[in-house]
């Protein structure tokens, strides 16, 4: 799946929507891809909307892709196009009054988004060491996108873990289910999937009130988000959950209360459900006073999803009346952070999309342990037989690099497991 097939950098101080007669706003973004088709489509689609567009010269394109080869994206395209890409980014940075950071959207399964994405992120760390970087990663379907997707994924994750500040993960499988079950779409296309993703991103990054009150909007959502959610560099994996999420037809028959929405959202968090249907209500937080169930081995089922930190974003009517006590329960969190530090809330009375009331929960929790463990396991099995490794060594990624990646990710899995 792809919002951009390659990757796109968006600076967070995006221009606001303009009124009629005003100049059409231009996204503060740089689009990068190693083959032209997707970027062309993207540019024309945006321009067609009439409401916004991408800058004419803010994209970088080549003719031939990366062949699903992380090594090619990282070791060949990266150095080759480093300067051109850097210049494009520099131009956008100069347009900002105050740079909060970089938001990098990329996929893991292919060659460009993953390999070149990792390279560019590393570059950003060198060039703009004081700016924050968040990478939005598309976690591939468990099966059937790209055969070497597990190799590409572990190489991406290990490199990003070293050079990025936070990883916001979207799983294709989860989004696909949302389209099927909640949105009732029969023949799901990538367009549908992208729509859900855009909704999730919008629900997080649309303006909210700052701490000073309802007359000031938050100036630096990226920074605030990272401050709230990434207290320790070992734990960088973030996920988003939304409620409600449904088709237009269903919406007509539904009414919402904050109590109802938040109750479901809390259970979604605890049981690691990705959507509001099929939630397992049996799962409960561990009782206080009992020995903690930490130090679980990987073989045991992780039923209860322990959080490090949570950020709740509420949008809509009567937003100040919502009762948040459920999220302040210390049982939800790991022991080394007080709930007062682990839980934060952002609010705005402005409704989002078509929902009178809506909530988004961004969490740093164990939600990704199982998928990560699975990818590492599959990649390891493949690596043991040395299958496809010659395709990577051809371009300078050696077996050592693979082993380093495995070691780093096993560490991440272990750390999250023992929360």
């Amino acid at each position: 799946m792809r919002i951009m097939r390659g990757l796109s950098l968006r600076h967070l101080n995006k221009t606001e929507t303009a009124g009629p007669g005003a100049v059409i706003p231009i996204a503060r973004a740089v689009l990068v891809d190693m083959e032209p088709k997707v970027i062309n489509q993207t540019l024309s689609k945006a321009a067609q909307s009439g409401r916004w567009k991408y800058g004419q010269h803010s994209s970088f394109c080549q003719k031939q892709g990366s062949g699903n080869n992380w090594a090619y994206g990282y070791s060949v395209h990266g150095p080759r196009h480093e300067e051109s890409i850097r210049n494009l980014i520099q131009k956008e940075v100069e347009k900002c009054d105050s740079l909060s950071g970089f938001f990098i959207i990329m996929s893991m399964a292919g060659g460009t988004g993953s390999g070149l994405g990792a390279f560019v992120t590393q570059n950003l760390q060198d060039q703009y060491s004081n700016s924050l970087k968040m990478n939005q990663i598309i976690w591939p379907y468990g099966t059937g996108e790209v055969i070497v997707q597990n190799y590409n994924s572990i190489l991406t994750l290990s490199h990003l873990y070293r050079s990025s500040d936070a990883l916001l993960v979207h799983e294709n499988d989860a989004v696909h289910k949302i389209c099927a079950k909640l949105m009732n779409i029969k023949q799901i296309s990538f367009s549908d999937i992208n729509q859900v993703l855009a909704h999730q991103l919008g629900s997080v990054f649309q303006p909210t009130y700052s701490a000073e009150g309802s007359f000031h909007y938050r100036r630096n959502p990226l920074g605030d988000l990272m401050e709230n959610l990434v207290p320790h560099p070992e734990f960088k994996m973030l996920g988003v959950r939304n409620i409600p999420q449904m088709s237009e037809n269903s919406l007509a028959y539904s009414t919402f209360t904050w109590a109802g929405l938040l109750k479901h959202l809390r259970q979604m968090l605890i049981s690691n459900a990705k959507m509001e249907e099929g939630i397992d209500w049996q799962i409960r937080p561990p009782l206080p006073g009992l020995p903690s169930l930490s130090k679980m081995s990987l073989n045991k089922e992780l039923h209860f999803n322990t959080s490090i930190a949570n950020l709740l974003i509420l949008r809509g009517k009567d937003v100040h009346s919502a009762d948040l006590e459920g999220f302040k329960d210390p049982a939800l969190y790991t022991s080394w952070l007080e709930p007062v530090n682990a839980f934060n809330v952002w609010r705005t009375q402005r409704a989002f999309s078509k929902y009178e009331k809506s909530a988004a929960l961004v969490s740093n929790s164990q939600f990704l342990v199982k998928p990560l463990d699975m990818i590492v396991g599959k990649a390891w099995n493949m690596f043991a037989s040395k299958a496809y490794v010659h395709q990577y060594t051809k371009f300078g990624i050696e077996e050592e690099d693979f082993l380093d990646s495995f070691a780093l990710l096993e560490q991440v899995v272990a750390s999250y497991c023992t929360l």
Partner: protein
Amino acid sequence: MWIPGASLLTKFLLPSPLLVMANPFTEYYIVETQPGSNSLLIRVVGDGGSISKGKICSLKARAVLIDMEEGVVNEILQGPLRDVFDSKQLITDISGSGNNWAVGHKVFGSRYQEEILEKLRKSAEHCDCLQCFFVIHSMGGGTGSGLGTYLLKVLEDEFPEVYRFVTSVYPSGEDDVITSPYNSILAMKELNEHADCVLPIDNQSLFDIISKIDLVVNSGKLGTTIKPKSLVTSSAGTFKKWQEKPFDAMNNIVANLLLSLTSSARFEGSLNMDLNEISMNLVPFPQLHYLVSSLTPLYTLADVNVPPRRLDQMFSDAFSKDHQLIRADPKHSLYLACALMVRGNVQISDLRRNIERLKPSLQFVSWNQEGWKTSLCSVPPVGHSHSLLALANNTCVKPTFVELRERFLRLYKKKAHLHHYLQIEGMEESCFTEAESSLSALIREYNQLDATKSMPVEDLPRLSVAV
């Protein structure tokens, strides 16, 4: 081949007289680019070099035609596609290679090396971005087999970064060329070492496909009128009497294969796949680069009362032996990887549903249980609403190679016809023994993989880390 923005170079080698490839491929190609191609910018390559938008004024195949006897090339140059081929991109000789790999490889190879290089470089210059070479040849004769594989080495040296895709026609058991086992084995060594990807084809399979279509057309059943343009075997407006010109029909099938292979690189779609991704995903070890191809559908019914073939049926057909371009049994052998290249109005959910449905009946190697590579191109082929090309890297190619080796050994033991080869400068008996051991090594690799077939899939112990 002609591509706006030009990212491919195709070369045709005509191994007389087995296969005439050029006609159908280019013809279909013209049909593929003409309708509704308002978004294409066509570059006209003439002596002036001018650019014209919109309608195709004049189209030139980016191809080099090579044959060591003139008959076949002349036929093309007098046929309906004569304007498509640039007469300067031909290399011909008079006497042919006499079904002798050594003549094709050693004699003509060295004689024409410079000329070949020059014409290749010229063609390559016209490309904005040269992605790959397609080499189309046969294994059993002298030119296609010998000179064709010589070319692979030249391409590798001159354009090391450009992928080499080879479509090879393997000889059948009843081949009337006595020395075809020698030629094939000698060519196999070159394919092993210098090709990135090989799509083996045999004439018998192509013939079977034609027969099958013939059955449907002539069965006289109600509602079995076939849309002429949809036939995988015919490019003309009507269904020709194929018995008179079977090779045309057979060639059309291979042309369709190549069109489907390149469709995702030429047209847009929700899940693009470039040609370099084929090699990356389907070739887990350098030697094991032989892919079994199957095409579906073979035709579309014209009667509107008959419901269009269900999408799921198309996926099932792709895994049926009737649609394969080489005789093999992938379902009972081991898959190393499989690619599904879909064209037309098909969504990602359809693709995933069908993979889930078909998976249980197929055996994949333990370290690649989910070895599927998929692509979606929005533009279907002419006459169809959707189509599918499946490429399988499967151990089922082994019997073909084993049989080839056996036929070779039978001849070689008796030293039959060997003198024709050894009298050529540069040829020694060691060429034969090396070729045979190269093939044996390949067969051994497949054997090793097959041995893992019935073993239970176990997870290997992982790296342990201190917490």
